[in-house]
């Protein structure tokens, strides 16, 4: 199982204002890479392009599995993503959110499986509370679980440590470590606590 992501001369403009220009890079599983840069340098934009949520104005992002190119639908199945502006359904409970994303992705899970997932992030006792009643750090931990519910080989994390305490940071580090044994992790960050996740893939300017 060999997964590869190639960025080929990627560029992005918002209303003719260039944000990203001529970015090329390639990552092959397993491993962790970071996208670094100050606020507004385009880290989140680049991660969304890699996820397929945004179309680049120039170039392309190609996913390869054993040398075969994936289409949009296959890409959706191999990517899990956590980002500050990708929200959960706040009126739904933690377990309802997990159940929805599992079902939508065709993963058959029992509530027991979901509860033990929640146990891992110390949310089991809050499984049946609406996400709206969670603290930001709790939401962040649940987002990570949701992104991993289909066991994707590619995990994209946009500032995963934001709002997390030391235990939460440790959970992220652990998740990244486990994921990186087989798959690909790309972390976008400017938090010095997150810089040591892996080698820099791209350093964006201001």
């Amino acid at each position, binding site marked *: 199982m060999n997964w590869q992501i190639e960025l080929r001369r990627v560029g992005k403009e918002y209303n003719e204002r260039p944000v990203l220009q001529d970015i090329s890079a390639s990552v092959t599983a397993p491993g962790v890479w970071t996208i670094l840069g100050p606020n507004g340098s385009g880290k989140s934009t680049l991660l969304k392009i890699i996820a397929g949520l945004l179309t680049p104005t120039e170039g392309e992002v190609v996913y390869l599995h054993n040398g075969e190119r994936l289409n949009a639908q296959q890409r959706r199945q191999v990517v899990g993503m956590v980002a500050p502006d990708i929200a959960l359904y706040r009126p739904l409970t933690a377990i309802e959110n997990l159940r929805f*994303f599992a079902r*939508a992705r065709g*993963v058959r899970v029992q509530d027991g499986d979901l509860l033990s997932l929640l146990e891992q992030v110390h949310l089991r006792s809050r499984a049946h509370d609406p996400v709206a009643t969670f603290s930001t750090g709790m939401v962040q931990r649940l987002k990570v679980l949701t992104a991993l519910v289909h066991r994707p080989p590619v995990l994209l994390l946009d500032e995963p440590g934001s709002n997390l305490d030391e235990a939460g940071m440790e959970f992220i580090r652990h998740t990244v470590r486990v994921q990186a044994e087989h798959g690909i992790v790309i972390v976008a960050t400017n938090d010095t606590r997150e810089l040591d996740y892996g080698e820099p893939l791209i350093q964006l300017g201001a």
Partner: protein
Amino acid sequence: MSRSSSWAREALAVFGKDCLLELRTRVALGAVLLFAVTSVVASGFALAPPSGVAGEVKASLLWVIVFFAAIAGLSRVFVVEEETRTADALRLAVSPTGVFVGKLAFNIALMWALCVVTVPLYLLLLEVPVRHWSLFVTVVILGSTALACATTAVGAIVAKATMRGALFGVLAFPVALPPLLVAIHATKAAWLSEGGWRMATGDLQVLVGFMLVIVPASLLVFEHIWSE
């Protein structure tokens, strides 16, 4: 954990999720029912005694109420995902077709719920004598489904537009007019005419044909709009 893949499964998940959200928040049902029941009751009082009002007028009024209630509640199913910032999560997990079909199913269910409450109340308050019950029920089911298709289609097309409100009005008018007109005509046939089914067959065919055109067409457009 096993895995299967199809837009039908995705649509079912989206439909279930939206039903659950509706159960918790009651946003759409509240908007739709409040509008419809208020309008029906107001009409009942305003047109008293209802025996003096022509059947044609009553049939038109019923569908105008249903139509406006649909616009009040159904048009927002796509926009609400953008507003709650869950649209990207949905885009990551579900194909555009899965999203569209799931939302369409939810809107149809909402429309039927609306009709179950509103139509009997309307018949009662406006003292409508229904001559052909089976035809009338068929017209209500097909008509409300067609209106759900129309509002879902327009809602999908304007989901990411900036002048959403204005655009919705401009588009909803031509799209919803054909099913609205034939539903009114068929309703008159079910209430008043000797002919009944014979009078309304053409109308029912138009309603079905309308759905067969508008759903694939708007789905095609939606697939492009939704992912970007």
